[in-house]
């Protein structure tokens, strides 16, 4: 099975504080891995290391074959990180937002239409400004932007936050659909009950270390 993420003894520092204290993590293509743990455990730091945003101080790490110690910027084009904000332009419509992200990578209008269809933001919602969307609709628009960017590793930080039950159900279906299309998902979430049902593997993070794992 193809390895997408490989972290070995990774130490990462945030403002002189060791956010990760020697993490070992391997993620294979097609997995949905849930990182859970208390606040400040290091879940977001794992995602940021994988996205090439947080440098590795010690240990070794690679994402899709790219060495995170030497070429961490290069991995960003293949990775989609969705944090608490959606990265949308609130005064643009849904179509204009997704088209903008598509045009930064040279994706076609057909890819835009397909991504919007998959996220169910085509039709009536397509011409609505992002500022007028609900939290769930904005999240779907952001996910459509990840799809057109052709991100093959999705890193999602608290993806269920701010969504109602229907929105959370939709998000879960979207993630399963993304995985079936060849993507890999690593998500950090407090909503462990819901996320456990979705995840193929659950990893407990505590004190900047992996403290447990279950399939």
């Amino acid at each position: 099975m193809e390895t997408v993420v490989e972290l070995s003894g990774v130490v990462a520092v945030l403002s002189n504080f060791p956010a990760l204290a020697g993490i070992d993590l391997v993620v294979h293509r097609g997995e949905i891995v849930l990182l859970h743990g208390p606040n400040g455990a290091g879940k977001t730091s794992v995602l940021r290391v994988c996205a090439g945003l947080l440098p590795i101080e010690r240990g070794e790490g690679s994402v899709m074959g790219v060495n995170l110690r030497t070429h961490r910027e290069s991995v960003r084009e293949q990775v989609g990180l969705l944090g608490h904000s959606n990265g949308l332009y609130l005064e643009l419509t849904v179509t204009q937002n997704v088209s903008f992200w598509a045009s930064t990578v040279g994706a076609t209008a057909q890819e835009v239409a397909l991504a919007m269809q998959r996220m169910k933001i085509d039709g009536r919602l397509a011409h609505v400004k992002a500022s007028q969307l609900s939290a769930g609709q904005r999240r779907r628009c952001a996910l459509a932007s990840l799809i057109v960017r052709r991100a093959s590793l999705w890193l999602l930080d608290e993806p269920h936050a701010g969504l109602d039950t229907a929105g959370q159900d939709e998000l879960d279906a979207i993630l399963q659909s993304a995985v079936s299309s060849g993507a890999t998902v690593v998500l950090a979430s407090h909503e462990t009950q819901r996320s456990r049902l979705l995840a193929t593997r659950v990893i407990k993070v505590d004190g900047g270390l992996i403290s447990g794992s279950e399939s």
Partner: protein
Amino acid sequence: MTSRMQTVRRVSLAVVRKDLRIEWSSKVLLNQVAPFSLVIMIMFAFALDNEGILQRVAPGLVWLATLFSMLVIVQRSFAVETADGALDALRVAGTEPLGIFIGKSLALMVQLLALELMLLAIALVLYAVEPTAMGYAETFATMLIATIGLGFVGTLYGGLGAGARGRETLLPLLLLPAVAPVLIGATRATEAAFGSGGAQSSEGWPWIGLLAVFAGVFGAVGALAFGPMIEE
């Protein structure tokens, strides 16, 4: 064309199109910035209520009004990037920073140029300046070159202040001293174009040359510094 240059071109086009589309949709330039600069020009006319003085200082007033209005446009240009974390998302996505810099600079230049044309028309009416045909050519050349410099430096400092707390006050403090050379050069060139204070048209071209040098320097510094700056 190398692969990197193709990416820069693609990202620049996407960003300039997106910024102008946002402006077209929100009409902030038309409904807020243009009236603001009109009010500035009228207030100057009230404060310096003497035709001789107004004609003499009209070039400086046009460029001061441009700079004050530019602060609003730059603030706005980066406010839309930070409202829902779009600038962060661009950075996280590894979007070519040079492309973002060029795209945002071009969009700013287009908006500034439209504003300057309006301010010129106001100066012709309110301040009764009467440039010759050569004077008009010199004025347009000054506007074009000065706008390129202002577009680059505005984008650079807008990016610098984008993530900062208190950026509304920080931006004028940082940007106005940096654009002082453009203000001086553009004012001198426009004085020559307007014939203010008996200045000759030929006196303006060396200042336009100097503006071109500033534009080149600001463009080069911005191209090098914008990426590391938004990374911080």
